[in-house]
């Protein structure tokens, strides 16, 4: 497959204007342009650094995408090699399927809440361990900051599914440590199902996801804050700026790119959220059902692979839309700032 792919590329290159047509040298030299001839060295370079990666990308990333988009337009059952083209029937079915729509709503809520909460906490921690230290002497973090940095990174080291299993144990109604602590304090939480009660299930899911992510994004923000010149903070401190003011007027504007990246990453993860939802609330209340669970249900259990593909395509569109919205907002915000400056 990779050979075929690379010969395609080679063919395309050979037929390229620069490859076959050799314009008069002098004219080229006169205009200051120069087209190099194709030699073995260049061709190998292109094959190794472009042809091969491109072929791998096409075969393992793009082709499944297109295949899924095609299946979404068929009544493919998943187990029989025969199927018919049904046009947009699967998408029309999706729009009337309130279980799936509800799962989409849940994912969107997660994509709105999880990044904001995670980033806010991670930013607060990152500021604390870098610039929020004593207001005398050099700009530094609070005492023991390197210790906190390591500790808060721990959750990120644990695989997501383990986090799900551990927390579902902690939140277990009868034998979980949380209810044990709460009841020993005299609170009425005996047998309370944190992950089963519709009132608390979504919040519990969000809490665990935030817990899992905060450490990593804190480390990311710490790295960004370190690249902000300390003089700016010193100048602000001399001007009498409070720590809060420094965060909002210096830290956030200076590391805005990192925040934006973090927001997009977190949002995409929250638009998936499969491992957390499955690990914590397999068949929990309707408020914790997420889209990938519906895809798997239709793909493997209900024998509706075409419909599952349609849900997948819709989910990809929602994800793209999300990234688009985040980037537009960021661009708009930057434009306004630059205008003011």
């Amino acid at each position, binding site marked *: 497959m990779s050979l075929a792919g690379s010969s395609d590329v080679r063919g395309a290159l050979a037929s*390229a204007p620069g490859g076959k047509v050799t314009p008069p040298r002098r004219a080229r030299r006169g205009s200051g342009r*120069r087209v190099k001839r194709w030699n073995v060295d260049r061709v190998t370079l292109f094959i190794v650094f472009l042809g091969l990666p*491109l*072929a791998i990308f096409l075969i393992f990333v793009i082709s499944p995408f297109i295949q899924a988009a095609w299946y979404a337009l068929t009544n493919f059952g998943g*187990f029989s*090699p025969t199927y018919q083209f049904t046009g947009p029937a699967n998408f029309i079915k999706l729009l009337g399927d309130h279980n799936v729509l509800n799962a989409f709503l849940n994912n969107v809520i997660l994509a709105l809440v999880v990044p904001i909460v995670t980033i806010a906490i991670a930013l607060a921690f990152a500021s604390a361990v870098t610039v929020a230290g004593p207001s005398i002497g050099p700009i530094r973090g609070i005492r023991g900051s390197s210790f906190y940095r390591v500790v808060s990174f721990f959750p990120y080291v644990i695989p997501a599914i383990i986090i799900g299993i551990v927390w579902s144990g902690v*939140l277990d109604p*009868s034998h979980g440590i949380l209810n044990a602590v709460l009841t020993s304090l005299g609170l009425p939480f005996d047998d309370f199902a944190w992950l*089963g009660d519709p009132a608390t299930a979504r919040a519990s899911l969000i809490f665990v996801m935030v817990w899992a992510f905060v450490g990593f994004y804190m480390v990311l923000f710490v790295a960004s804050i370190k690249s902000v010149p300390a003089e700016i903070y010193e100048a602000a401190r001399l001007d009498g700026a409070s720590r809060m003011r420094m965060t909002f007027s210096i830290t956030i504007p200076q590391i805005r790119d990192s925040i934006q990246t973090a927001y997009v990453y977190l949002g995409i993860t929250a638009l998936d959220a499969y491992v957390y939802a499955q690990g914590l609330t397999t068949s929990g209340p309707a408020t914790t059902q997420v889209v990938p669970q519906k895809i798997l249900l239709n793909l493997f259990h*209900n024998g509706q692979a075409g419909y599952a593909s349609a849900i997948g395509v819709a989910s990809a569109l929602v994800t793209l839309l999300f990234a688009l919205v985040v980037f537009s907002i960021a661009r708009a915000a930057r434009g306004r700032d630059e205008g003011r400056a």
Partner: protein
Amino acid sequence: MSLQSASLDRRNFLRAALAGAVAIPLGVTLASCSTGGGGGATGQKSAKNPFGMADNTTVDAVIFNGGYKTDYVDFAGKILAKEHSGSSVKVKPETKIATTLQPRFVGGNPPDLIDNSGADAIGFNSILDQLEELQDVLDANNLEGTKISDTLYPGVLTPGEFDGKLKALNYVLTLYAVWYSASLFEKNSWTPPTTWDEAFELGGKAKAAGKYLFVWGKEAATYYQTLVIDSAIKEGGDEVRLNFDNLKDGAWSQDSVQKVLTALKKIIDAGYVKPGGSGTQFTAAQAQWSNDQSGLLYPSGSWIENEMKSQTAADFKMTGTPEFTVTTGSKLPQTALRSTAGEPFAVPSAAKSVAGGKEVLRVMLSKESATNFAKTRLAPSIVKDTVPDDAFGSTALASQISMLNAAKTDTFTFTFVDNYGTNTDQLVLWNAFLDGKSSVNELTDGLQQISDKIAKDDSIKKITVK
């Protein structure tokens, strides 16, 4: 390389990339459209080889590796190797049946025998066209020379019959009952309830003893759905079952169903169900019954003894009792049972050796294999008379046999939940109901919507149940 030529090159690459992006997946899609043939090599049919399995066949069997493990198929494989020298059975234990077998079905090279069971089983209506009819296995003689269909319990073929054709042989006899600890009941001089009113009364006694009547776990909330449907079928007769299985409008509003739901709601509202089940993993919840003994009763299939083996209190004496009726004048007697069979074995038509797959089934249904299964798994297979009177010392197995004997021919089963894969959606509603968060009406509406959605969806193949 100057900037100018770089941009030209990039354009060419994009062009090539686009061409590739269209060509490759198309090729893959087209390739996946072609099917392989099946049937495979066959040998001479004879009394010893009724399906004509070819010499020196290695039968490829993919077996669900769940509560019953897979070595009972290995056991049958050894007998097959003895009967047909040169041939053998290769058993591949698998937990994720659908995920593993999907590409093999689409690619036209499925195994010779599958046990399509477990949480990741393939929905039968999506592979029906690709499965062999197994009627000739029933018509064949077992290794002892008796016709196999004469050796089976009544009603065990039903779950494998689709539109009148036997496409799967469910090997393990499964009956649904309400399970309790005989020793605990004896100590407190309680008797297992036979009607919902008696169950409510027992709930009061349990409360007085600081216990609950029922426990439940989030992934198994629909065990109570099974209890409700079975109970309603006993109360209202066969018509109730047909309305459910054929996805009839208003199936959940049938009078007997509503009576049972109301009775269960009364128990929930009285606080006789251990709270928190919607957040408890189901085996943990089951251990609250079998080990902590904080709940008295648990509705489940007969696999429960095997499943909880390591988490059952010593001297628990697990015993089953038939599910409750609403009144003593129910259409079916209280001793009636939902008796069915689990672990559906099927033979794909495109398999290399269809005859080999069937031959393994024939061996499994013979006396030696079936007795081995009952003895090592403490569960009866669908073959009769393989469990001795002492039931290998298991109270649960003994109670199964006595319930079966008491039910005689009053056995039934329902199949719509398995046929259409509705369990996942129904779980959400049942968790809310058992939690006391929803009313009988809300539950009825929600469950009816799930059935209606399937009934109205033309893209889902319907299985008519008679």
